[in-house]
């Protein structure tokens, strides 16, 4: 009899399933975070560009009154929250389970001075931080889905005082995401090719380049929101009126008043 056809097939297949779900959820999150950064970085182009992006996200172009459907954004944030929780809970199985394990790993990391091992600790630490701050951020976004725009988002940084949270999240996610993608590649042998060792060297270089790129873009974007948040603090809570800023973004030149 095929041993896997037995009653406990489901239980036996679990470790493989959980590992795959951990990897796929990590992949989805990492890809999402890259797209997410590119979208929010539209503020670096102009306020109108970011306003336009926010509009597309809530499908403003489909609604007659021009208000769009912020619940789409809320729904998406909740979906990501589910993936996020699944990934976080599965990955946390790998955390040291007790003091002895933590000590064993910690002294091992210090002794070995081995890059990929040391990076795992950073992955665990940043993952743990994100588990709390990231879920807070996602819940806020789901509840305030209608309050995303150049001014209201910047107000969240300054007038609502969330900038430290955003900064920690930014640093965590950029380190964690790229490291995770690297690990996905070596873990499943995705790009092994003829010479897996050369591939790994290249992947490591790519990892550093991508981390620096996303960190630079992220920090510039962060600075842009902080600046707007500071300037806009006296009128905190007031929505952005499109077109006041010189627009570079396509598609924002819709008839007067349509954006409400």
């Amino acid at each position, binding site marked *: 009899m*095929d*041993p*896997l056809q037995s009653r406990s*097939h489901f239980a*036996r*297949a679990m*470790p*493989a*399933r*959980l*590992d*795959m779900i951990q990897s796929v959820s990590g992949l989805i999150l990492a890809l999402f975070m890259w797209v997410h950064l590119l979208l929010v970085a539209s503020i670096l182009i102009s306020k109108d560009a970011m306003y336009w992006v926010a509009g597309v996200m809530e499908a403003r172009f489909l609604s007659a009154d021009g208000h769009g459907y912020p619940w789409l954004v809320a729904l998406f944030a909740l979906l990501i929250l589910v993936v996020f929780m699944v990934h976080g809970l599965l990955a946390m*199985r*790998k955390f*040291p*389970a007790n003091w002895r*394990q933590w000590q*064993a*790993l910690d002294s*091992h*990391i*210090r*002794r*070995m*001075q*081995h890059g*990929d*091992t040391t990076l*795992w600790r950073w992955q665990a630490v940043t993952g743990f931080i994100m588990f709390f701050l990231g879920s807070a951020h996602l819940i806020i976004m789901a509840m305030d889905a209608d309050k995303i725009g150049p001014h209201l988002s910047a107000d969240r940084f300054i007038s609502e005082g969330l900038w430290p949270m955003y900064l920690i999240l930014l640093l965590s996610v950029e380190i964690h995401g790229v490291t995770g993608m690297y*690990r996905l590649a*070596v*873990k*499943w*042998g995705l790009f*092994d090719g003829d010479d*897996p*060792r050369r591939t*790994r060297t290249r992947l490591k270089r790519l990892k550093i380049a991508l981390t620096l790129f996303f960190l630079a873009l992220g920090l510039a974007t962060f600075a842009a929101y902080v600046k707007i948040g500071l300037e806009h603090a006296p009128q905190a809570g007031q929505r952005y009126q499109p077109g006041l800023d010189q627009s570079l973004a396509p598609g924002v030149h819709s008839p007067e008043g349509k954006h409400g």
Partner: protein
Amino acid sequence: MNENAIPTRSISADDCAQGRLLTLNIMRYDPQVKGDSPRMVSYQLREAPGMTLFIALNEIREQQDPSLKFDFVCRAGICGSCSMVINGRPGLACRTLTAGFSEPVITLLPLPGFELIGDLSVNTGRFMRELSERIGSWIEAAPAAETIDQLEAPMEPELAEQIYELDRCIQCSCCIAACGTRLMREDFVGAVAFIQVARFRLDPRDQRSDEEWYQIIGNDQGVFGCMSLLGCEDLCPKDLPHQTQIAFLRRKMAGAI
């Protein structure tokens, strides 16, 4: 006397010993001795050309401290006995040249995660034997042939080559001591087990299917527990292809459900 001649003088013992003064910090501890506790002891000796840690340790044992315990058999990187933690990283003493250290201070610890016999000597044998039994590291052949003089099926040279490549493992346990996962979780089988599974899985004489292999390593103590830290890949003294083999097994095992 020719003015250009190099002034001659008698050769002293000092001139022969031109090598650097090496300091070896070695963990000393004998669990058999009541009341003994681990401590670091420093030994100094002159570096000689081509000196390996194996030679240095023997010199210390012969000239300074006959009670120093460490293992070796082949002194040529074949038997896998002399693995220890060298300046923080697992490696073979007999294959480590002292000249490779820019600083003349070398710290030696026993491999972590194994039963300590004393000083630098650990019992990796018991671990390897248990591992062998756990994963069945032998050929699980089809029912015996009718006659003993039946010819064995020929094997393609490329395949034999691939199997041989994985068979180069000397069971030194460096990959185990280099693995953060294994140090946290003692029941994790570790990279040497994956290499052995990969080796027998490749062997056409072995009848085990992927479903059967899944029973053995398709769990969190096996391939799905590996956190891809790649200490094994980077520190295996035989340069075995751990990353590719673990990834390969992971794909096969994920495909076996």
